[in-house]
């Protein structure tokens, strides 16, 4: 990896009220290389990139792009000077067409004000052809599946013909074939001499695609090394600052008798069809499958968050209906939703309110007045039992890290004393250290005799935590495997059964 630097960020610091988000961080990207940026959530990766892209203004430090010092004041400036970015959160105008999104901020015009639809369509086709993206340019964004929207976003970043392209967790909503597609695009960009900054939590991806890896921890630079000299264990060690000997805690739960029996469950407005399975006391049942295979639908139909078409649910042999989340909670169910920020937390409300919200009737004094004392006691229990790191109960939940937010929500559900916990991607967007703690919590619950159903797109996690794994494919149950005697290959084969 010879050659001069394309991008050099030196001694970048950035402080938010009360937090030092970046402390003297440096990053050097050479042309024609993929530079991975790794670190736990809250390590400052995205903040560093936002400083580069003109979304945040850095407090100190210098950024040199192509031998020239730059300090972008807006995204527009960054884009015009050859820096493009695929953002972590999908930032799209959903009510507008694909091509309107692609050229937003730089519409091809006739005479400066009139948008040339023809030129726009032609240029969109060209880019989609170059990148082999199969999306109709005039489709309205909201009608596309999330993975296609992400591919449009990637095509958009490439279309700026930038020198430096930042990919901030681009694969979180992509299927495996699309990840391969993305990697082909990245390799192409690398061959063209672009400098790629690649942020991801997925170690396998990092080791495959990147040339160099920079690791950050708590807003500081930890190490920069060639990817070929690194192993997964070393990366984790550098990220966490200590050695993680095991990725999964020991399993001591013992599945007992069947408590939940689901037969022929089908969704009315979703693709879920004819799902039958059982759950035992003290068991962790995993649900595997590709994106869109109906994993989430199993949980949400079971919980009454989606409308059922048909099917029977028996809890301890007694038929229940779970027509709405309210009814399901009364029946002893709890659902940890997939999109924590959108449907899990109440961001601007404090830890206490977020903890007691599903259980308010238990804090009523005389039937109308909520007792602050009782709520504080239960919240204190949750903070202690879940090992939640928070300055106080009155902290806004959005200021906590993803892992701590997730623990607050698990605590919320435990207060309702559920018998069956439905966990949808419980460790999504959570850093490695906190994942271990979440696994521990899940296994503890099973040991206490609760039944847990857990959806995950991370295969190792299913194999490490679950007793049995249900594999979904095309909205149907493709098979069921024992996690002790199965392999990732077997699960993948089942997952492709009805695709």
């Amino acid at each position: 990896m010879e050659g001069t630097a394309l991008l050099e960020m030196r001694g970048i610091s950035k402080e938010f009220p009360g937090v030092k988000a970046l402390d003297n961080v440096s990053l050097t990207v050479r042309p024609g290389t993929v530079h991975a940026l790794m670190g736990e959530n809250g390590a400052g990766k995205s903040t560093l990139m936002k400083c580069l892209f003109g979304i945040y203004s850095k407090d100190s430090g210098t950024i040199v792009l192509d031998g020239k010092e730059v300090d972008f004041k807006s995204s527009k400036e960054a884009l015009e000077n050859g820096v493009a970015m695929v953002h972590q959160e999908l930032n799209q105008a959903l009510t507008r067409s694909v091509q309107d999104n692609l050229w937003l901020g730089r519409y091809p015009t006739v005479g400066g004000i009139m948008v040339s639809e023809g030129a726009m369509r032609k240029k969109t086709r060209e880019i989609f052809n170059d990148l082999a993206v199969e999306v109709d340019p005039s489709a309205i964004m909201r009608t596309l599946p999330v993975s296609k929207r992400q591919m449009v976003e990637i095509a958009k970043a490439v279309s700026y013909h930038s020198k430096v392209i930042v990919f901030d967790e681009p694969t979180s909503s992509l299927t495996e074939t699309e990840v391969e597609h993305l990697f082909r695009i990245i390799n192409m960009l690398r061959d063209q001499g672009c400098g790629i900054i690649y942020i991801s939590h997925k170690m396998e991806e990092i080791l495959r695609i990147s040339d160099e890896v920079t690791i950050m921890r708590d807003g500081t630079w930890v190490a920069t090394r060639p990817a070929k000299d690194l192993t997964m264990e070393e990366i984790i060690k550098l990220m966490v600052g200590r050695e993680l000997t095991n990725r999964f805690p020991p399993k001591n739960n013992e599945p007992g008798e069947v408590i939940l029996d689901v037969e022929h469950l089908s969704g009315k407005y979703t693709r879920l069809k004819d799902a039958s399975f059982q759950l035992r006391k003290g068991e962790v049942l995993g649900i595997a499958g590709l994106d869109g295979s109906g994993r989430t639908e199993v949980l949400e139909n079971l919980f009454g968050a989606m409308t059922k078409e048909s099917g029977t649910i028996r809890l301890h042999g007694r038929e229940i209906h779970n027509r709405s989340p309210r009814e399901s909670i009364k029946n002893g169910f709890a659902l940890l939703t997939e999109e924590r920020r959108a449907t899990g937390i109440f961001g601007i409300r404090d830890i206490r309110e977020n903890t007691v919200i599903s259980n308010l009737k238990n804090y009523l004094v005389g039937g109308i007045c909520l007792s602050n004392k009782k709520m504080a006691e239960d919240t204190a229990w949750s903070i202690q039992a879940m090992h939640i790191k928070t300055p106080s109960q009155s902290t806004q939940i959005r200021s906590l890290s993803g892992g701590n937010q997730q623990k607050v929500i698990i605590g919320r559900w435990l207060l309702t004393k559920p018998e069956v916990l439905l966990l949808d991607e419980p460790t999504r967007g959570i850093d490695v250290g906190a994942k271990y703690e979440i696994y521990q919590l899940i296994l503890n619950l099973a040991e206490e005799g609760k039944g847990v159903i857990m959806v995950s797109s991370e295969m190792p996690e299913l194999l490490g935590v679950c007793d049995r794994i249900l594999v979904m494919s095309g909205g149907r149950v493709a098979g069921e495997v024992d996690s002790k005697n199965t392999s990732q290959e077997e699960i993948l084969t089942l997952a492709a059964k009805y695709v």
Partner: protein
Amino acid sequence: MSQESKQLQETARKAVDIKNVGNFVLNNALIILMVIAAIYIAIINPNFLTTGSIINIISQTAAYLPAALGIGGCIVLTGTDLSAGRIVGLTACISASLLQSTLNMANKMWPEIGALPVFVVIPLVMLVGAAIGAFNGFFVAKFKLHPFIVTLGTQLIVYTMLLIYVTLGNNNGMAIANLDKSYTDFVKGPLFSVGDIAVPRYVLYAVILTAIMWFIWNKTTFGKNMFALGSNEEAAKVSGVNVFATTVLVFALAGAMYGFTGFIEGARVASNTANTGFNYELDAIAACVIGGVSFVGGIGKISGIVIGVLMLRLIFIGLNMIPGMNQNFFYLIKGAIILFACALDMRKYLTKK
């Protein structure tokens, strides 16, 4: 293929057909109901569909349209504009006062100014409207205030400006009337006649403004930026859209439209007071909502707004023609239409789970 499976397929196809018809009816329910209402009124009162009545409906639609076209942009940005009516009032009074007849100097508000040419007054009042609109937009974009709050504030501020304006010069708070013939002819003069009933000229102006606004919304970078901003502000920002300028411009453009409405109203009302234009924003917002400009943001069509204004006028004029109809019920019907329209509109954007 067996007989049975053929039958099954047939049933499935029929079911899909019925569902499609149902969706069509629901998506166009408002228009269907309005047409039924119009037919009903036409049957019980044959005067409803006479040439005179139809021209009346078209003229009124034309008069209310520009303000609705302006406010539509604010709604696309998930905002609203409560100051529209007072801006219409202010610009109507300014237009009227600058275009009073010179034949009766004693009652003229500004005797020292002769009657100005209309082509000086039109840009002037549109500029006044645009300036107030830009003021709204500045507060919305700079301080991230909700347009509801900002325009509630400017509504009151503009009302004071209006109250003071009508006391200036020789006017002493009287109604501003006695307009110059060049002004009233320009606005109300016959465009063409159907039989012996004339279509006023301002219908043509509304058509021209509608065409211009259609072009701005659909064909310009500004229009596309406006929709993108209403759909997802963050996406617009990181794509390099100048969010501040776009927001200010949307409100300024709306202001210019109110200014033009004021110019038309000045001549149409003929006797202008501080009450001119009162509550115009509510009809304009209602028309936009009926026409499918969604408060969800980033959604709306010029054709929808035209239909919305037309529907509202049709119903108002129609209700007046139902014998024995109690006027007090007009507001109830208007309210019901707005609720019904919004509920139908939201139905399109909800995904069933």
